[in-house]
């Protein structure tokens, strides 16, 4: 535990140095404050952005008031879209990937379509998504699902197809076939690859949510930083970007935990 905290401390050295340089550069007036506000200004803005707009008036729940800040609303809005979009995208990709991985027939049937559609970046669907779904959550969630869909699909297919033949032979020797073979052998053997896809998928979903909010939604972190640009609020832009970074980090840590738990049997993972 001690070493863990020490590692965190060491890891914070470089960011701290960067903030120091940033401070010096802005304090000395070497750059236009409009283009790059001081770290203190950004921190102030971040707190202001985090806290509720009005003082507590005694009406209603204190908790509701405490969470009424703009940043919290934006962060919850963005996370909601990421999670819902990811759930839809991954929820569709997983069964299709398992089918395409396990059945040569399904693979032949869908592979050409997948290979043609896959290289189109989700961002390229923005115009179409707005034509189809208008503004607000529907186009954003459509784009995010799309972003999450392909990484999960491709990794699930690969995971199932690349199950080591020795496991299949051993399982057949023990009498396994049909659903038992699939659920107890093929699926667990594919889990490392599927989880790698989930990780890429949620990362993509997080990128897409920011872009989608910039063009199609009027709240969320992506919307907020793009709105701030219109008013030249560079401190708010950076405060928003820092929040995006922290949320991304939180997702990554959560994924890491999930990985370590689900793959506790896997070689090379010690926790």
């Amino acid at each position: 535990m001690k070493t863990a905290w020490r590692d965190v401390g060491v890891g914070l050295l470089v960011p701290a140095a960067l903030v120091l340089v940033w401070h010096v550069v802005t304090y000395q007036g070497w750059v236009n404050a409009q283009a790059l506000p001081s770290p203190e200004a950004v921190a102030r803005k971040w707190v202001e952005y985090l806290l509720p707009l009005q003082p507590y008036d005694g009406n209603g729940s204190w908790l509701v008031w405490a969470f009424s800040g703009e940043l919290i609303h934006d962060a919850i809005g963005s996370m909601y879209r990421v999670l819902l979009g990811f759930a839809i995208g991954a929820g569709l990709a997983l069964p299709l990937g398992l089918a395409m991985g396990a059945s040569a027939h399904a693979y032949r049937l869908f592979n050409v379509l997948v290979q043609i559609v896959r290289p189109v970046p989700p961002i390229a669907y923005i115009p179409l998504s707005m034509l189809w779904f208008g503004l607000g959550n529907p186009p954003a969630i459509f784009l995010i699902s799309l972003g999450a869909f392909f990484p999960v699909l491709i990794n699930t297919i690969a995971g199932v197809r690349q199950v080591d033949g020795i496991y299949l032979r051993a399982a057949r020797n023990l009498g396994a076939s049909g659903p038992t073979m699939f659920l107890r052998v093929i699926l667990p053997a594919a889990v490392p690859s599927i989880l790698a896809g989930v990780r890429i998928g949620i990362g993509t979903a997080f990128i897409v949510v920011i872009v989608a909010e910039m063009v199609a939604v009027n709240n969320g972190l992506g919307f907020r930083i793009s709105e701030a640009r219109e008013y030249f609020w560079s401190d708010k832009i950076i405060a928003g970007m820092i929040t995006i970074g922290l949320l991304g980090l939180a997702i990554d840590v959560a994924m890491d935990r999930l990985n370590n738990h689900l793959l506790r049997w896997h070689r090379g993972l010690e926790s």
Partner: protein
Amino acid sequence: MSAAHIEVKGVSKVFGTSVVALQDINLDIPRGQFVCLLGPSGCGKSTLLNAIAGFSPPTSGSIIADGKAVADPGPERGMVFQEYALFPWMTVADNVAFGLEIKGMPKADIAATVDRLLKTLSLQDFRHRFPKDLSGGMRQRVAIARVLALDSPIMLMDEPFGALDALTRRDLQDELLRIWNEQKKTIIFVTHSIEEAIYLADRIVVMTYRPGTVKRDILVDLPRLRDPSAPEFNALKRELGQMVMEEQQRHHNDELRAAAVD
């Protein structure tokens, strides 16, 4: 019931168009016999074992085990692989239990059988470990327990101790002999170690390098446990060593020829 527990009749196996891995193999293996298939790599001994296991049917000829023609792999011919082939996502106990679950054995019986087998193979302290946390020797113990759980009369072993160090290997050989002695299974054991074959087998089938045929089929009638330093042991070792080296030399020449063509 016929005398032979496993009958291999006129089995040939051709890979592609020209590689004759097995050519007209005939073997009658009586119930309870411990047979070693011995030969250099490329002699088709693993191919023959895989055919008996049902993984890869012969090109021609037939294999009859326990009175039934072999068509598919199945738990009545349990196999122990050189690379252990344990399921890494299952604990030791779950690996051993898997075959029994497939059979549909009641839960309480599975637990009792797993307990007994883990004890037999000195694995009881490892039951909740995953395979990645075990040494090679321990993994192969689990693989043996997994096959013993099937309670099949036939046990097929494909160089099971090939990747183990000498001491662990001897340890597991003795363990295997003890189990075989108690359960009198018919065992077909593939190895390229002459000493291992003499140490274990009732009968040694020496195979030729491509095409794989039976070069010699001898009974080993030395009393067990055998002493590898005894003169009879060494006399047999010398005799078998010459045969295997002849085949190894053919293998080597073949490789040189192939290299010269490239």
